[in-house]
């Protein structure tokens, strides 16, 4: 069985994000990047599937699409235990939307015979959650989103996935090949291991650029993309809090009045 885990390199969740003065994007200076936490679940699930099912003879590949710095996401995946890593590396991949990226990835993996793809439910940078479903669509594969548990069929040709929906749990059976996006709760990702990290630092990654995949500059230009980031702006500063003063009973009355009449919250 061949398993692919998609990985994305994103700003750390606690990073202080600054917008570039011209509004064209975020300023990466001084921001620490990490493997997207939901991609960690994807990598972990891929490795666990391999470890727990020796009969499946699984091989795990991690893939990322983005500029050179994104290789770090692959090194982390290798240090967690993936067997191979593919970097779709081109500056032209930096500005493309999810659908275009899905097309790029689909072409890169078309001939590689993957049976299952694990992706994160969402990347915590732009929170779009589009890439997984878009890639499934490009490959014409079934897709199960935000999966919290997986049971493998005995022959590894199918699986049962569970996902939380409003007030219930949905159980989905899928035949492979299939793409699953991983939700928090599916597993707890392991820490990378130092010996593997050191090996990963030395291991050459398989790197493919736009030309190698047969994409022209026009196909990757903003006008070719279905969606386009308009402008980045920091959220407006929060208005300062308001202090109420008085006796507790009087304060409570005041507060209710404000919530009802001014804020219209109750």
């Amino acid at each position, binding site marked *: 069985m061949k398993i692919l885990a998609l990985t994305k390199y994103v700003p750390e969740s606690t990073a202080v994000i600054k917008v570039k003065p011209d509004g064209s994007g975020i300023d990466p200076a001084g921001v620490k990047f990490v493997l997207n936490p939901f991609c960690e679940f994807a990598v972990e699930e891929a490795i666990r599937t391999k470890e727990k099912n020796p009969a499946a003879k699984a091989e795990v590949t991690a893939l990322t699409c983005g500029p050179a710095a994104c290789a770090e996401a692959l*090194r982390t995946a290798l240090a967690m235990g993936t067997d191979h890593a593919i970097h779709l590396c081109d500056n032209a991949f930096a500005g493309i939307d999810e659908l275009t990226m899905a097309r790029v990835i689909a072409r890169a993996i078309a001939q590689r015979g993957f049976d299952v793809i694990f992706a994160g439910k969402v990347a915590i940078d732009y929170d779009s959650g589009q890439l997984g479903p878009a890639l499934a669509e490009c490959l014409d594969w079934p897709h199960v989103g935000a999966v919290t548990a997986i049971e493998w069929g005995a022959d590894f040709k199918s699986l049962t996935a569970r996902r939380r929906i409003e007030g219930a749990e949905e159980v989905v059976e899928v035949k492979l090949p299939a793409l699953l996006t991983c939700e928090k709760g599916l597993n707890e990702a392991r*820490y*990378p*291991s*130092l*010996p*593997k990290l*050191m090996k990963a630092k030395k291991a050459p990654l398989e790197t493919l650029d736009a030309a190698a995949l047969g994409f022209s500059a026009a196909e990757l230009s903003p006008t070719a993309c279905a969606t386009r980031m308009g402008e980045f702006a920091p959220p407006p500063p929060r208005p300062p809090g308001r202090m109420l003063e008085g006796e507790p009973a009087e304060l409570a009355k005041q507060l209710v009045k404000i919530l009802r009449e001014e804020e219209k919250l109750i």
Partner: protein
Amino acid sequence: MESPNPFDFYDVRGLFSDDERAVQDMVTRFVDEQALPIIADAFEHDRFPKELIPTIAEMGLLGCNIEGYDCAGLNNVCYGLICQELERGDSGIRSFMSVQNSLCMFPIHRYGSEEQRQRWLPRMAKAQVIGCFGLTEPDGGSDPGTMKTHAKKQGGDWVINGAKMWITNGTIADIAITWAMTDEGVRGFIVEKGTPGYTARDIKRKFSLRASVTSELFFDNCRVPDSNRLPEAHGLAGPLSCLTQARYGIVWGAIGSATACLDECLRFVKQRTLFGRPLSHTQTIQRRLANMVRRITNARLLALQLGRLKDAGRMHHSHVSLAKWNNVRMGLDVARDARDMLGAGGITVEQCPIRHMLNLESVITYEGTETIHELIVGRELCDGVAAF
């Protein structure tokens, strides 16, 4: 230009390689996610958080600077950064790692036979075998040359008698690297748990390193085969070279304790309002904070250059002494001052400075007391004449 980062005022991290930064980040995350949430409780209840061991082992921290034997083969700066991050959690966690790495795996690697290395190191890297290091005795740790524990050759075996005191990991250890006097001088032995005549007992009522196991070891006609002797260790230089390794880790560890205290303290003085202004806007508090940052910055630069010397094979043992003395004193002073600036809240384990402060009272004593390190440096300045 932006204001410098108070925790790394001179951007010493900028001097690390990508690998070194990656290793540090990995351990930072482990400490934040796994150690910090449980450590205050563990300290309060005098409990070593054993549950952290499997992850520490899976991450490959044990034996990380050994090449081969399923170990990562990291450089010494990486090893230092790991110590620094673990001690930011607690000196007890760093002590566990120091003992396993520097005091147990190092001597087996350096002084052991190939058979001993194969037998023990891979399992020690996986924490399937935990080690302890028995050098100090009840009658005085600073002068190990006068140890009373002795080993007598009987046929092909050695019979060990004596006692060791203040031994980290003692009762949880599967093997004790035991130093004993023989007719030919000091020798090192691997004593396995369960060997008749070998017992260990915990030392209770500690007010320091409470999240670490400290024990006494007893050897009563304890018989070990000659194959358990470390063949390449001859004389006191053997155990002393192990101490040099462990002291090196402490040099970095103390920085971790100090930054944890600075962090807690900075947050407090900025939000505490007294006399109508934040505490942090008073002259005395700013001087004290500046002094902490000055000393942490010095310590960082010292540790890094020491690491570079060690990686280049140019580190003299007195280099380590100067840095252990400087950095642990720095850590202890910073922790005490942070404790004070927190006011009454600073006396509870809810805030980390008192925990680090109490821990560092051990750290300044073990692996050579502060005085001994001053005298080691002094000896280098005065014709090699030892004044201890």
